[in-house]
């Protein structure tokens, strides 16, 4: 994709150097969307007119010497589960009342706009951030740009596709059990699940109230840092949003891995029979690469990780069922078939199961804190495999498989997914770097430093390269 900048920060530099304008960028990305979106199914709504107006404003600001930071004039997208004043919010569902969120921006969206971001539209997701693509619902079917027959993962599938295929320079996803990290993994870019409370989540249709987070998705860790800088911080409309100070993330990107203390939990995360050996080898090779650059690595144990996955599931589907129960009772067939099956799992648990999951949560949080006492980060695979063929996914079978992402939602920790290789198909492979509470700066520094040593995150799917050629 040589005709448009590859990364958000490249575009920011080009805008400031006068090499392009926001209107030119916006027109270029809108043209790509027009060309590729019918195939890839990334956008539900494209707000071209509003985007061009925002781009013109960004250019006028530049001309007037007003610089609101790296997002000014940058084409972005938001998952269609966040309220925006200029377009309906669907949550990819025919169930959600179209009046929900009408006429106002979620704080995250308002912050992007205030920073000069140009929002190109609203992106496909799994229905209510939980289901799977379902042709019966009438919404676009998301397709992996590396192989159209394969899953783009979920639930922030549209954001993942759009970043990977160069339809936007950065976007917003939400993550309750892996919904930022899964699409980042399958589509081959970077995604950050933030600490619970780091980013206000008001104006977002909930899934699991105590697990939900909103985070940046972009090609690189440095691009994610630029977006997080804008969206992080307390908002009075979300009482769970933290008042912890927001660091200067860009200033922490030193490029150094010297002295970073990495823990590698081999049990569960690396010995699962379902783990693809190519994923395992790529992640361990990435750890070796970081060690060669000065990181200190040792093994660590989290004996109750498998149970943490179950506790996260119980928490998520119980909280989700409370939100959806009335609609499930009255609009059962309006939900997609996968969504209603997953939501209804919440009915199979008892109230005491939910409370026990919260008791386990306290216990496991302490276990993780002990394990990380003399570490800065943990490194694991993001998922078991590279992108699967869409027709081969069985959600009931997945119930029994290990999962490496929801565990960190359970304990609220930040986790960065980033590319660390390709398999022999070739499809992107991904590792996950997990940090301590509110240590997004450490994750972004480590991720950025790794990405200065590698170019996995800069590789472009052939379908996108052909459009640019």
């Amino acid at each position, binding site marked *: 994709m040589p005709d448009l900048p590859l990364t958000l920060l490249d575009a920011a530099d080009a805008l400031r150097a006068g090499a392009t304008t926001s209107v030119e960028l916006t027109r270029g990305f809108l043209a790509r969307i027009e060309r590729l979106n019918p195939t890839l199914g990334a956008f539900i709504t494209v707000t071209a007119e509003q985007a061009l107006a925002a781009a013109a404003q960004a250019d006028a600001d530049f001309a007037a010497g007003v610089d609101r930071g790296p997002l000014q004039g940058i084409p972005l997208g938001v998952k269609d589960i966040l309220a925006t004043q200029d377009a309906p919010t669907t949550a990819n569902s025919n169930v959600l009342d179209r009046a929900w969120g009408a006429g106002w921006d979620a704080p995250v969206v308002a912050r992007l706009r205030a920073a000069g971001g140009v929002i190109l539209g609203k992106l496909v997701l799994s229905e209510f951030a939980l289901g799977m693509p379902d042709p019966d619902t009438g919404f676009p079917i998301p397709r992996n740009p590396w192989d159209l027959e394969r899953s783009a993962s979920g639930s922030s599938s549209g954001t993942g596709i759009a970043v990977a295929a160069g339809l936007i320079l950065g976007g917003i996803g939400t993550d309750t059990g892996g919904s930022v990290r899964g699409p980042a993994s399958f589509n081959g870019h970077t995604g950050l699940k933030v600490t619970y409370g780091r980013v206000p989540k008001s104006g977002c249709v909930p899934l699991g109230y105590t697990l939900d987070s909103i985070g940046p998705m972009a090609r690189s860790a440095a691009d994610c840092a630029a977006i997080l800088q804008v969206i992080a911080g307390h908002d009075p409309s979300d009482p769970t949003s933290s008042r912890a100070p927001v660091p200067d993330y860009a200033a922490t990107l030193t490029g150094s891995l010297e002295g970073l203390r990495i823990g590698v939990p081999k049990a569960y995360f690396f010995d699962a029979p379902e783990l693809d050996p190519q994923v395992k080898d790529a992640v361990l090779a990435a750890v070796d690469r970081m060690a060669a650059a000065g990181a200190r690595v040792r093994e660590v144990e989290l004996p109750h990780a498998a149970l943490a996955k179950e506790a996260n599931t119980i928490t998520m589907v119980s909280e989700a069922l409370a939100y959806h129960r009335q609609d499930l009772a009255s609009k059962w067939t309006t939900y997609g078939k996968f969504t209603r099956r997953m939501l209804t799992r919440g009915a*199979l648990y008892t109230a005491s199961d939910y409370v026990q999951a*919260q008791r386990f949560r306290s216990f496991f949080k302490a276990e993780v804190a002990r394990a990380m006492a003399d570490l800065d980060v943990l490194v694991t695979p993001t998922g078991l495999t590279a992108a699967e063929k869409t027709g081969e996914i069985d959600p009931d079978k997945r119930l029994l498989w290990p999962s490496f992402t929801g565990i960190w939602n359970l304990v609220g920790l930040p986790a960065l997914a980033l590319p660390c290789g390709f398999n022999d198909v070739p499809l992107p492979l991904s590792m996950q770097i997990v940090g301590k509470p509110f240590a997004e700066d450490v994750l972004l520094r480590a991720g950025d430093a790794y990405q200065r040593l590698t170019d996995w995150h800069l590789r472009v799917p052939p379908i996108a390269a052909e459009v640019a050629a």
Partner: protein
Amino acid sequence: MQPSQAPDSAATVRALLTAQGISVSDEELDRFVAIYPHVRAAADALYIPEVRYAEPALIFSADWPDAPPPGSAEGVYRA
């Protein structure tokens, strides 16, 4: 008998769904019945000795919110 060894998963699942007001097709009911032993076992597995005296990670604050959620200010009575 452990809870996960309930003799009739189909009756249990049917009762749980009915209690929530959820009606499903026979095919969907079969799916829920098939996964129910796994679901039940996963929940039962959390009752480990280490958690016996743990406090739940539930926080309630009696503080009033600083501001209503955006879009919901209407209808809030202020003296």
